[in-house]
């Protein structure tokens, strides 16, 4: 099986969120970068598990970004990819990213394209579905389990208040979340091997974004906590009923 895993770089979950240039730029000073947790823990590790089960499986990674995202793609290679593509552009929206991925996917003829359910910085949940549409493929979003029967995938996905199991013939795009796999840590051998794995830098396909950034805003701070003494829990209930009027 040939698997393409989409990898995105995001700020660490504890990064301070601040904006500059009239609130049009995320301030990256001091920010630690990580592989988007959904891409790493669920999509990539699931692909690695499939390869462990069937050694003929190959894992191809793709990221869309400038040269500064390379440490992230090397880390992904250290975890277990065979080769990686970096489409050399600073994308403006999800559509631009999807067009680049679809282009690489068209050339590579993959059986499975895996993404994380969303990135933790842009939270768009859009790229996987757009790629599927551009390739006229089926897609399962928010998948929590993946198995195979013959040439079909058996995918479990989250639905409101439960889950759904469906059978869908390959090729297929799947966005992955918790349940798909467990996080792993790259080992020394993987890190060494990653240095020599192919990382191909590919020029982007010309495509205009469909949306643009106007500005960022931080949410207003909360006014502060009102503490109720531990021996008067009834007072909390009264406040929620009479003051906040929510129960």
């Amino acid at each position, binding site marked *: 099986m040939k698997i393409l895993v989409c990898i995105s770089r995001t700020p660490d979950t504890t990064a301070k969120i601040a904006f500059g240039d009239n609130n049009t730029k995320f301030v990256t000073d001091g920010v630690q970068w990580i592989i988007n947790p959904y891409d790493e823990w669920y999509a990539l590790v699931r692909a690695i598990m499939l390869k462990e089960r069937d050694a003929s499986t190959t894992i191809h990674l793709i990221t869309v970004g400038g040269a500064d995202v390379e440490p992230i793609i090397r880390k992904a290679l250290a975890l277990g990819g065979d080769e990686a593509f970096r489409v050399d552009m600073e994308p403006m929206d999800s559509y631009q990213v999807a067009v680049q991925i679809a282009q690489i996917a068209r050339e590579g003829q993959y059986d499975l394209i895996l993404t994380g359910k969303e990135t*933790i910085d842009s939270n768009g*949940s859009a790229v996987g579905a757009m790629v599927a549409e551009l390739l006229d493929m089926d897609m399962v979003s928010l998948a929590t389990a993946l198995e195979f029967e013959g040439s079909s995938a058996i995918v479990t996905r989250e639905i409101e*208040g439960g889950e759904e199991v469906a059978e869908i013939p390959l090729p297929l795009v799947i966005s992955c979340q918790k349940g798909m796999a467990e996080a792993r840590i790259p080992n020394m051998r993987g890190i060494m091997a990653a240095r020599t794995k192919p990382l191909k830098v590919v020029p982007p396909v010309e495509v205009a974004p469909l949306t643009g950034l106007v500005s960022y*805003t931080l949410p207003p701070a909360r006014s502060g906590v009102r503490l109720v003494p531990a021996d008067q*829990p009834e007072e909390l209930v009264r406040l929620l009923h009479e003051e906040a009027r929510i129960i």
Partner: protein
Amino acid sequence: MSVIIFTEHSNGEIRKSSREALSYGSALAGRMGVSAEAVLLGTVSQDPSSLGIHGVSVVHHCADETLNTADTRRYTSIMAEIATACGSTVVIFPHSMNGKAVAPRLSARLKAGYVSGATRLPDVEKGFVVRRNVFSGKAFMDVLVQTPVSIISVNPNSFGILEGEGIAEVRPYHTSVGAGRVVVRETKKVTGQVPLGEAELVVSGGRGLKGPEHWGLVEDLAGLIGAATACSRAVADAHWRPHHEHVGQTGLAIAPNLYFAIGISGAIQHLAGVNRSKVIVVVNKDPEAPFFKAADYGIVGDAFEVMPRVIDAVRKLRKG
């Protein structure tokens, strides 16, 4: 010209997040001076004309039972067909599991700019600018749609449901889009519970509750006030609670009117999923727990002593 709204149902009932999307779409159509029209795929138990109460004048109804199970590729084709036939300039989706899958597909199909998870109505004065959540609830981003057609998914619990008197005209719609390749084998649903993503009130427990056997404290309060239940990642990882209850940066992001957190430290990754809640209540025995900084009301105390009394007081309130 029109605003069309993708309207979802579950077990024949229109979903709450879709009622919000209908209200949002109707309000937007009002601002733009165009009509608001619902698209309903599959069969429902009530008369679709009743969707008029949320402000839509027309319901395009494709009453085909095979559409009751979601095939997002097929849904996309039908939405594209209807949007084109109606000359729609805006297509609205609920930011639900299916909405999140169909809206971006439609965006790629129609080459129409997509705004995922809108938190308020678009500003149509200076182009078409829509506010959405980014950085896992830690910031907002205003997005300008640069294409003639816009696609928006509306975050649950951010707009509210508008109800009036109207009755919509129901237009039967027959699609030429055939069955897809997705075969649904099984649907497991926890019935009788409010889906977490749509819930207005949420009671949540963390590792401070010591073990799954103490979840009665969460469930009793939730049951009394009609809330959904949630948990921290540490709790889901320990398998004390199911994964779908895990909220936070790597779980579900929610924005209920009340988030009641018991024995949760309030780590930054947890806050990322809940900090858009309107009122946050924290019960934690550690006065230094970071959650108190993000809370509106709090009790520094032992949950095992505090919560039974909270539950009793709520029970009295409900009776009285």
